[in-house]
């Protein structure tokens, strides 16, 4: 993985110093809260319902054991002993004191981490495929480009006071594990007929209150021109986005209002205009970065056999372990969705244990996923049983990846000042219902995603089953949505009809899955059946 050189370290250290100075000026009253707010947000510090929340960047979801242990240390020293892994592959802490924030940043800087641009109207931490470097279907590791873009977008002088936040995702696989078309810019590495690398560039996707699946703006962008093209798109948006209504300022609205054709024309024209000054990074720098992502020294001649004599272990292997490109190795998914539990939460002790496992069994490499789970990307098949035993002992071996109990949920009204309704208790009740029914495995792949307000941090638009919490006359009410997907077959879920109360939504989800079990054909996932039969049979049982 990427390691800082003295330039990277100097920049992050300077940021710690800058934020310490800004915090001191705020605490001394030299700055108003209005003036301080965008500055702290650019450093991931939100004022929430009960305390400050600090969001720490995990660039493209990759970290090593030393960094992971630091995350555990911060949970212990400055928070209440746990952290929350987010749908942006980051981690956030919910009980932070403002005066501690500069010290936390200083601690993070010692392990080459930071909280730069994890919130605010800035270019956010870029997300990428959690299987990068291990997936059998990728054309190459996308992370060198992700790191290149991370650097180029850090403290970008022209694009630090953008109309709204801006999120980029990159993958190099046909199977989309990062929801590229639901991002402001989604990038997929492809090869053209001449064998050259380039990007499919999707612009203008997103969730929130006005969801869009991003159109393909450019089918093939030469890889060497990645950053100048992103700059061109950012400049068109920065200049011409609305600034009068915070809900209409994302790039997706501009693409929609301008029209895909006109937006494309303007971006191409801007790109032509800036190419003479282009700040594209030369290939030798990409090669320097790429050397950091060289494959680890995989052993050869390993057996692909797995001893499945322990049935609980075999269940976990079938559900949570994915194919690796190297013979004798496997990708291990660590579910952060225990039953019952809080989606995405991990205690400091669990964080330490996972760090140990990454160091001992996975070439010191660890990933976070947008589904709020973790990944050990390179585990020898011969070690799977030992890894599983240690995960089991720590409550981290729930065999439910992509199943009905692997629910994405935002923090909701339990923590978030924007929320209209609670998310976490709904996730727990739905989990409990399926456990009671005992049909989690029978239901197969089923992505349930819950947001506590229309900002959609729980990705409900992309859920096979999505749940949106709203406030109806002072009581929490939950809308049911069906048919969304954040994968390569991206689609937006549609609302079924009137909402439900807290227990009603749990019943509604169960009834929905019963329709699936009744109607499904051989080999169909929930989503496939829904797409084939449409919403009507579901409406009949829900409202009929």
């Amino acid at each position, binding site marked *: 993985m990427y390691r800082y050189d003295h330039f990277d370290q100097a920049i992050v250290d300077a940021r710690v110093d800058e934020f310490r100075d800004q915090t001191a000026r705020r605490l001394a009253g030299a700055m108003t809260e209005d003036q301080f707010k965008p500055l702290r947000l650019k450093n991931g510090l939100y004022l929430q319902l009960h305390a400050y929340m600090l969001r720490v960047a995990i660039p493209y979801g990759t970290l090593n054991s030393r960094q992971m242990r630091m995350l555990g240390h911060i949970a212990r020293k400055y928070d209440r002993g746990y952290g929350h892994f987010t749908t942006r592959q980051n981690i956030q802490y919910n009980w932070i004191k403002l005066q501690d924030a500069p010290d936390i940043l200083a601690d993070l800087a010692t392990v080459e981490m930071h909280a730069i641009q994890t919130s605010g109207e800035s270019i956010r931490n870029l997300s990428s495929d959690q299987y990068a470097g291990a997936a059998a279907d990728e054309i190459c590791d996308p992370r060198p480009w992700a790191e290149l873009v991370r650097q180029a977008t850090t403290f970008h002088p022209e694009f630090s006071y953008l109309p709204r936040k801006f999120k980029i995702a990159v993958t190099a696989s046909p199977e989309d594990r990062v929801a590229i078309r639901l991002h402001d810019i989604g990038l997929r590495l492809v090869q053209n007929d001449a064998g050259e690398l380039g990007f499919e560039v999707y612009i203008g996707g997103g969730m929130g209150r006005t969801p869009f699946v991003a159109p393909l703006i450019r089918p093939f962008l030469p890889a060497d021109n990645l950053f100048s093209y992103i700059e061109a798109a950012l400049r068109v948006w920065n200049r011409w986005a609305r600034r009068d209504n915070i809900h209409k300022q994302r790039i997706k609205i501009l693409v929609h209002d301008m029209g895909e054709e006109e937006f494309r024309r303007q971006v191409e024209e801007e790109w032509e205009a800036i190419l003479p000054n282009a*700040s594209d990074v030369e290939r030798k720098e990409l090669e320097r970065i790429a050397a950091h992502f060289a494959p680890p020294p995989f052993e050869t001649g390993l057996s692909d056999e797995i001893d499945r004599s322990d049935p609980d272990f075999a269940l976990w292997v079938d559900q949570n372990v994915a194919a690796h490109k190297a013979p004798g190795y496997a990708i291990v998914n660590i579910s952060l969705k225990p039953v019952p539990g809080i989606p995405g939460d991990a205690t400091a002790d669990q964080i330490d244990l996972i760090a140990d496992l990454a160091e001992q069994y996975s070439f010191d490499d660890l990933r976070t996923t947008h589904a709020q789970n973790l990944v050990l990307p390179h585990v020898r098949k011969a070690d799977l049983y030992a890894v599983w035993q240690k995960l089991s002992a720590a409550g981290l071996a729930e065999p439910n990846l992509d199943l009905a109990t692997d629910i994405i949920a935002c923090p909701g009204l339990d923590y978030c000042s924007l929320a209209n309704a609670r998310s976490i208790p709904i996730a727990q009740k739905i989990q409990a219902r399926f456990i009671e029914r005992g049909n989690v495995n029978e239901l197969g792949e089923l992505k349930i995603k819950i947001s506590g307000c229309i900002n959609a941090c729980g990705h409900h638009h992309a859920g096979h089953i999505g749940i949106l919490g709203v406030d109806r006359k002072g009581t929490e009410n939950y809308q049911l949505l069906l048919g969304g997907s954040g994968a390569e077959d991206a689609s937006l879920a549609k609302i079924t009809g009137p909402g439900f109360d807290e227990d009603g939504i749990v019943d509604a989800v169960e009834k929905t899955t019963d329709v699936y079990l009744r109607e499904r054909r051989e080999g169909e996932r929930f989503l496939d059946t829904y797409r084939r039969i449409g919403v009507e049979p579901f409406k009949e049982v829900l409202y009929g």
Partner: protein
Amino acid sequence: MAEDIIRFRDDPPHEEPVVSVDAFLDQTNATAVRIEAGEDARLLVPYLDRLALIEIDFPRFRDGRGYSSARILREAGYKGEIRASGDVLVDQMLFMRRCGFDSFAPDAPIDRAVLDAALNRYDYVYQGAADDAVPVWKLRHG
């Protein structure tokens, strides 16, 4: 007021009043013009050689359109003064300098010590802009 303007230029301050973009395009003998947020800086590109001062207004410090305006003017080769006016705060001025602003007429006074620290805090930058700073990726390769 001239005494409140923070300048990073050696030439004497320009004395003529600024006119609006519309007025300038109607009557192009003016030498100083003011761009409001949302106006297209590229309209001035044909006339840059006769302009000595371009003022770019920031109605709210969170409105970042002016950063792109300044860069477009510098990319087009403009060497005259670019002044940021309005809601200009000390924590934005480093980015403004990098985008090509070389004078500032803030609504509220700026603490010069804080400004000096802010402008000198970062020894390195990750990307090229309108200033002379060499991005670290170039420094890495000599």
